[in-house]
């Protein structure tokens, strides 16, 4: 951090401490809401959802070979394969948003061209394990599923449209050698790796299993009653797998990489929860921003509300995962479900700082087209979802 920005930071904290009317009832209520919301996350979501998700993300980044996936983005790769891999590769490649942009620039200038590159650019930040599992846990599985499906579908459509619109100047790019990450030698079969990651996904699913509506019987209630036993059994199985299939060094690098994600994401998420709590409050509890404003801007499922949500999502910068508490606050304050999905689809992939970098890679015209396509499609998806489930 530059000395000048440090000074400005201290100055703004001081100014806030000096001038904010902390005694005013609205500010008191909002500050309290911020900490209630933080507590809700600490109690409900950290142990059962975030921690398992961090370990899964760590395992994917260490044990899934990125080189194998990246081969499909080379200039010679089959187009159909490039698009399919690009649209789902966010799950494996891009838990850290800072890896997305260089990869995108590489695919665009040296590799498979504008279509797969933009497909990857969109899907990368939108469908990583952490984002989808937290969305499903906090905002409901319907929205989580809609987000995952929407992101994959959008990635393919955006990529194809970009390739179609700019098909002429796709040839004027440099060719040259490409370097994909080195693949280490494998000690395990693909089946063992799959089983190992699947066990962890099941742990996540059962530990975070939501309480069914009271009085309901049937399989969901039975699973809920047994969820901790199932989770513990799965943990024991995981322990045996680690002992039998993995060396000490591998376990160490797995833990290190999970810890890396935690260090990177936890502070941002806690900050995001505090800000969302202060501005919007928990569902049913008013905070700083009056609920009528949000209802009039983003309530219901009108074209206007959906468009508003996608444009806001496209411009705003969401640090990894913070879109979830912000949406939780907005939904609680009266935002419609359609606009919520529109914001989720347009939000993480685009932001103003992001657009500047994309602009420097592929030029203003293509960047504007890319952003326009995403805003339009998010609006349509939001309206459809709102009409079906709203």
């Amino acid at each position, binding site marked *: 951090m530059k000395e000048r920005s440090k000074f400005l930071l201290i100055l703004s904290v001081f100014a806030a401490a000096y001038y904010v009317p902390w005694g005013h009832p609205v500010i008191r209520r909002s500050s309290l809401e911020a900490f209630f919301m933080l507590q809700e996350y600490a109690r409900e979501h950290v142990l059962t959802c975030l921690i398992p998700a961090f370990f899964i993300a760590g395992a994917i980044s260490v044990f899934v070979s990125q080189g194998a996936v990246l081969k499909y983005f080379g200039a010679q790769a089959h187009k159909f394969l490039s698009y399919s891999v690009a649209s789902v590769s966010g799950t494996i490649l891009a838990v850290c948003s800072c890896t997305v942009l260089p990869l995108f620039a*590489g695919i665009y200038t040296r590799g498979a061209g504008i279509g797969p590159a933009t497909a990857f650019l969109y899907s990368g930040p939108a469908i990583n394990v952490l984002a989808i599992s937290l969305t499903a846990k906090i905002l409901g599985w319907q929205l989580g599923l809609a987000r995952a499906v929407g992101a994959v579908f959008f990635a393919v459509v955006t990529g194809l449209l970009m390739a179609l619109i700019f098909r002429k100047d796709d040839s004027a790019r440099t060719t040259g050698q490409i370097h994909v990450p080195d693949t280490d030698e494998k000690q395990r079969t693909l089946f063992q790796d799959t089983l190992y990651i699947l066990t962890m996904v099941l742990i996540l699913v059962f530990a975070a299993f939501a309480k069914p509506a009271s009085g309901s019987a049937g399989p969901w209630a039975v699973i809920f009653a047994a969820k901790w036993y199932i989770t513990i059994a799965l943990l024991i199985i995981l322990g045996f797998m680690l002992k039998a299939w993995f060396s000490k060094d591998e376990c160490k690098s797995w833990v290190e990489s999970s810890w890396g994600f935690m260090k990177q994401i936890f502070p941002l998420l806690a900050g995001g929860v505090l800000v969302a709590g202060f501005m919007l409050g928990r569902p049913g509890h008013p905070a700083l921003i009056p609920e009528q404003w949000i209802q009039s801007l983003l309530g219901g499922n009108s074209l206007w509300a959906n468009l508003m949500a996608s444009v806001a999502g496209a411009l705003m910068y969401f640090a990894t995962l913070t879109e979830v508490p912000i949406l939780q606050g907005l939904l609680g304050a009266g935002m419609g479900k359609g606009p919520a999905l529109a914001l989720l689809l347009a939000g993480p992939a685009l932001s103003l700082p992001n657009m500047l970098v994309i602009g420097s*890679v592929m030029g203003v015209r293509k960047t504007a087209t890319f952003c326009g396509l995403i805003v339009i499609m998010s609006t349509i998806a939001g309206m459809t979802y709102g009409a079906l489930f709203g």
Partner: protein
Amino acid sequence: MEIKVLGPGCAKCRKTEEIVKEAVADAGSAATVEKVTDVMKIAGYGVFGTPAVVIDGDVKSVGKVPTKDMVKSWIES
């Protein structure tokens, strides 16, 4: 000798830069270490994945943090 660390500034890239600098100091080499953060320049090397280490135009590692011993062996060879 000219060593370039490619990466837009995430935690892993900073770690790589640190390790490379330590390795250069340990080996007593007169190599220069430069951090490249511009995405277009990174793409210009054809690397798919960061952090990457480039020594005199040769791509040595891609998409991972190298160990200090690895970097030393590149410098000495």
